[in-house]
């Protein structure tokens, strides 16, 4: 009798254990039917281009994946938090995504200063973070195990500016820059690049990012006979410089970085279309919204956002989300943060069809995007006119 009851108890316990145990331990933010992705970036304020608009682009990919049945049977859920391009707000937003929303990973990061603010919190949480637009070198150098970027870095942009000026045959190259944290992160590598090439800029002018007038700077650059001006400035200062340079009849090759990549908008800000005739800027992506290659995305965009106009930043979101989806696919059915990280670090020569070059990450190099597309206005329309690839 005693033996029978012991056996029954053992069987009951074993049965209970079998019922209670899940098929496998689930990762945070992952269920058998969903994977939750946190989107971090500016949803309001002037920086919304690098946040909300890119997220909208990414959303197209995620919704299309869901329509096709998800990844390994899991639908993608997204949760957005607004960092308002502000470091303090970004810390709170990252905490909310990690601890309240319990997301599997973060796909986001627009304004560099906000991303740098959120960086320690995300790094400490060991949560995968694929950055879509922030260009601060410190975010991926030195590499943190779970943090990767599909955006260009500030130093790659700066070196590319000089490379492009030389490609264009410029002989007397000058710089106009703003010297806040954003500007310095580009200005210093730019000066290093000058040094490495053994070139001295013929003029090195400073301007504040919120400048309303740039006549003195334009006059000084003109007096220095600079035939190319590398612009390390925000769109507002760039608009003032291009307008005032045109006003005084000064027409150098104007070479901007990604902050000036939306040339149609910059033209409206300058107010004088002729002032844009010699303007080039870096774009993270190879194609413009109206290009034939973007037809399928244009069609989907108009379905998801019928009242809006597709921009360069939407395309950037689409490209970056394609990388995320590819890595989720490769990470397999048993998705964990570690398996995602491992697959991300192995991603080699992945062609999104949108970035100017392939996406390649390694364990040592989490700067996965190194090719800059150069855009200009051709017959009033933004076109890709060249590409440069540099190392960091």
């Amino acid at each position, binding site marked *: 009798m005693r033996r029978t009851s012991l056996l029954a108890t053992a069987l009951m316990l074993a049965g209970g254990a079998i019922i209670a145990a899940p098929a496998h331990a689930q990762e945070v933010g992952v269920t058998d039917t969903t994977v939750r992705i946190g989107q971090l970036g500016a949803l*309001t*304020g*002037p*920086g*919304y*281009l690098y946040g*909300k608009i890119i997220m909208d682009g990414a959303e197209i990919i995620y919704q299309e994946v869901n329509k096709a049945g998800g990844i390994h049977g899991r639908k993608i859920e997204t949760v957005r938090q607004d960092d*308002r391009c502000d470091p303090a707000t970004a810390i709170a937003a990252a905490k909310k995504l990690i601890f309240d929303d319990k997301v599997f990973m973060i796909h986001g990061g627009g304004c560099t200063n906000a991303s740098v603010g959120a960086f320690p919190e995300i790094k400490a949480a060991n949560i995968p973070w694929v950055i879509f637009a922030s260009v601060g070198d410190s975010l991926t150098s030195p590499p943190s195990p779970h943090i990767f970027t599909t955006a260009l870095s500030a130093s790659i942009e700066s070196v590319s500016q000089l490379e492009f000026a030389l490609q264009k045959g410029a002989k007397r190259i000058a710089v106009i820059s703003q*010297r806040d944290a954003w500007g310095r992160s580009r200005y210093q590598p730019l000066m290093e690049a000058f040094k490495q090439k053994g070139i001295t800029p013929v003029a090195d*002018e*400073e*301007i*504040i990012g*919120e400048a*309303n*007038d740039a*006549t*003195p*700077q334009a*006059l*000084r650059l003109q*007096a220095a006979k600079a035939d190319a001006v590398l612009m390390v400035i*925000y*769109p*507002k200062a760039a*608009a003032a410089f291009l*307008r*005032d340079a*045109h*006003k*005084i*009849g000064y027409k150098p090759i104007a070479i901007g970085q990604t902050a000036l990549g939306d040339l149609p*908008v910059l033209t*409206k*800000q*300058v*107010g*004088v279309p*002729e002032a844009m005739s010699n303007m080039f800027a870096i774009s993270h992506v190879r194609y413009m919204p109206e290009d034939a290659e973007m037809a399928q995305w244009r069609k989907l965009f108009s379905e998801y956002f019928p009242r809006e106009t597709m921009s360069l930043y939407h395309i950037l979101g689409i490209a970056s989300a394609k990388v995320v989806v590819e890595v989720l696919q490769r990470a397999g059915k048993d998705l964990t943060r570690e398996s995602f990280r491992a697959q991300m670090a192995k991603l080699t020569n992945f062609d999104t069809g949108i970035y100017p070059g392939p996406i390649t990450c390694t364990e040592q190099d989490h700067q996965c995007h190194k090719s800059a597309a150069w855009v200009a206005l051709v017959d009033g329309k933004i076109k890709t006119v060249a590409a440069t690839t540099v190392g960091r």
Partner: protein
Amino acid sequence: MLGYLITSGLALGALYALVAIGIVIVFKSTGAINLAQGELFMLGGFFAFMFHVQMGYPYIPSLLLAVVASFFIGALTYQFAFRPLMKAGLVSVLLASIAVSFLLKGVARNIWGGVGDYIPFPPMITASAINLNGFIVLPQQLVAFGASIALMLLIVAYFKFTRSGKWLQAIADNVKAATLVGIRVGALHRLAFALGAASAGAAAVLMAPLTLLYPDIGFNLFIKAFAAAVLGGLHSIAGAVIGGLIVGLVEALVAGYVGSKFQDVSAFVVIMLVLVFIPRGIMGGKAMRKV
């Protein structure tokens, strides 16, 4: 080069002067510094953007509507933020104006934050430069320069020739005496804040094609305009214009001849020097003891 620097300096100075006029109107009438004056400029610009660009009204009606809307916002901010604190002292009013500046910025971010980064505003005439006897200038800069002089004359005439203008000066000179003779101090304070906001609204419509519009434009403009107002004398409308033009000229000339890295700091160095020797500002007059 000198000609270009002078014209661009005067145009930049006109911008500072237009904002400084609003600061002086409020200070002259209430003794308070409204730190939200830059945000009132910003809001005036967005009102004009809403009427002219988003709703498609012509330029002049949009300008007038933006000025009227700014006037009411100025009156509202007084009623709800400043009036309850006027008796608590000017430090409390100053702190309230900081709160108002953040509030207005937040409102603008929520309403217009998703429209663009730096929002362009069409110019009154043309965006292309014109040649005036060898000087290439932007027509909008001429408009802004002329408008700052016109606005200055208008405000000076208002204070000198209208009854409410004289009352505003009376309460600024001696609130207690003004109250004793039956002047409604509260209503006049409200009018001063509303007028200050209206002038900021007018300035914004005139300058928006040059400054572009974004919710964070206010603070930087306020700093330069406040410096201009202090330089010219905080009690003087003409001083605000003169101070603004000097700040603009100094910035342009120093950036052109000394170096662009000194542009931002140059105006403040001049102001410090002026204040050491003329503490009440260029047009501040002699200090008088109030009785």
